[in-house]
């Protein structure tokens, strides 16, 4: 549906990829771990290795959670925009088909949050 306006009403989107100095945005959330109140948002170069995200970036972001150290990445499953997604850790973000403003979720079987609360 078009926005009703008195005159032409079209503007360039505020967050198109060209505004991020070569990076693209990626959102990542840890399912059933709402102690982190919301998924995270990062700007990454598209050529960044996917494994670096998990190995280098995640500890700083998710590491405060006592269950983080217990994650078994081999059994962790992933969703991209809600659909199953199998990342190749050695390929780049772009090589994994990730585009600007894609959203990933990961599910860690056996981990149910603080005192099993989903937090």
């Amino acid at each position, binding site marked *: 549906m078009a926005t009703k306006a008195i005159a032409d009403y079209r503007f360039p989107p505020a967050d198109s990829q060209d505004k991020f100095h070569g990076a693209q945005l990626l959102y990542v959330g840890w399912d059933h771990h709402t102690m982190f109140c919301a998924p*995270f948002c990062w700007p990454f170069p598209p050529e960044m290795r996917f494994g670096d995200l998990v190995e280098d970036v995640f500890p700083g972001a998710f590491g405060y959670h006592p269950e983080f150290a217990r994650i078994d990445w081999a059994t962790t499953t992933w969703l991209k925009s809600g659909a199953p997604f199998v990342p190749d850790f050695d390929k780049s973000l772009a090589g994994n088909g990730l585009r600007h403003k894609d959203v990933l979720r990961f599910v860690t079987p056996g981990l149910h949050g603080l005192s099993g609360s989903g937090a």
Partner: protein
Amino acid sequence: MSMTDHQRLGLKERYALMTRDLAWDTTYQPMDKVFPMVHYEGIKIHDWDQWSDPFRMTMEAYWKYQAEKERKLYAIIDAFAQNNGHLGVTDARYINTLKLFLTGISPLEYMAHRGFTHVGRQLPGAGPRVACLMQALDEIRHAQTQVHSMSNYNKYYNGFHDFAHMIERVWYLSVPRSFFDDAYTAGPFEFMIAIGFSFEYVLTNLLFVPFISGAAYNGDMGAMTFGFSAQSDEARHMTLGLESIKFMLEQDPDNLPIVQRWIDKWTWRGTRVLAIVAMMMDYMLPKKVMSWKEAWEIYFEQNGSALFNDLARYGITPPKCIEWAAVDKEHISHQAWATLYQYGAAAPFHTWSPTPEELDWLSEKYPNTFDKYYRPRYEYWAEQHKAGNRFYNTTLPMLCQVCQIPMLFTEPTDPTQICYRESDYKEDKYHFCSDFCKEIFDNEPEKYVQAWLPVHQIYQGNCFNPDVDPTAPGFEPLPAVLDYYHLAAGRDNLDFEGSEDQKNFAAWRNLAGRD
């Protein structure tokens, strides 16, 4: 003879002569040029004379009664300041609610002032124009009385000092600000529903009645006075909002689907902004009056259903989002406070762990949800804090494209699962916290693609002061962002425990021989 004429006129007839009879249909300039904004939203008005004035105040009466209110209000503000009334509040934690108020709400009062001036110029009907302009005048009153009331707090406490700068920049303040920018940039009819209905009827009733009653209960006579005094004007404003809806619906059946969509949209927009008020009531008032859930039930559910039942005769159905909101009422205060707690390094007010007694109060008020979903995280954080490991989340969150709140809300069917929704529009993806924010976007994507989302703006490099070089070696973005916010790191932010506010309040109270 003239005097009998004068005396025979009732309030209504007299008021009509004092307002709508002053206007005329222009002939030297076409009406469409004088009132160019009245058609494009698709609302059809056939007869502005059918407008029924809700309150009938002439300017004389307005000046007289408003001046009386102002005299009372400023006498109390003065006395409160002269007597160091700020030291009489229950606990310095309370003062943080006022920081949220001044940075997040007062600037909206100002926007309401300008918005009603604009709509008061643009509506061709003299009845609603006068009501709008009177409201425009009231709204600058609210902005100013709030600034004046909190001016004294600013002198003694941190976090108040640059509210006008912060509302334009700080991440969570984009929530209330974008709410109002959205209404302001809508057409004049939508504005009336957005502000007259959603802001006045849904939002301010909850903020100014139960919350302000809570402020009084916590010893803040200053806030109580500006709050109740403002709300006395809001009573007029609510009736204006209600009359606007009725008027549009009565004028033409084609208006129904448009008005319905606006009611649905703005009920949801208002509900989302209220997450801030929810946490103010449940977590930030040291002495509690009622829980958020109870306030919501009285002022939204009971009052709202009365309104929607009333509007049913025009074919209006209650917004679908009400069912979702009924689930959310047991969650949002806990989720919102958890968010501000963890991002407490980037907010210009203090956060804290609820005391054990407060946790028990929350369990009692939220028997279905608190112990099961929320107590564990608050207890864990308190423990960690005690051990010297206070939780500060330093990774930026994903935001909803429409309400701009971090994506913290959970699925109505599963409180452990964050709710994700998305839409593709042109080249890009857009993400939302709920079905309703997504629907709002899908209805008007050209509007919401413009949103100034604080997290994205930081990553674009737009939230650093001009003299900062983000490419310099060792550049630390987060402190640079706090500088851009004019947030005094270590004074305005972080936990209440150990804050300058806490120490000063205790020391000053001690001087007064209290505690």
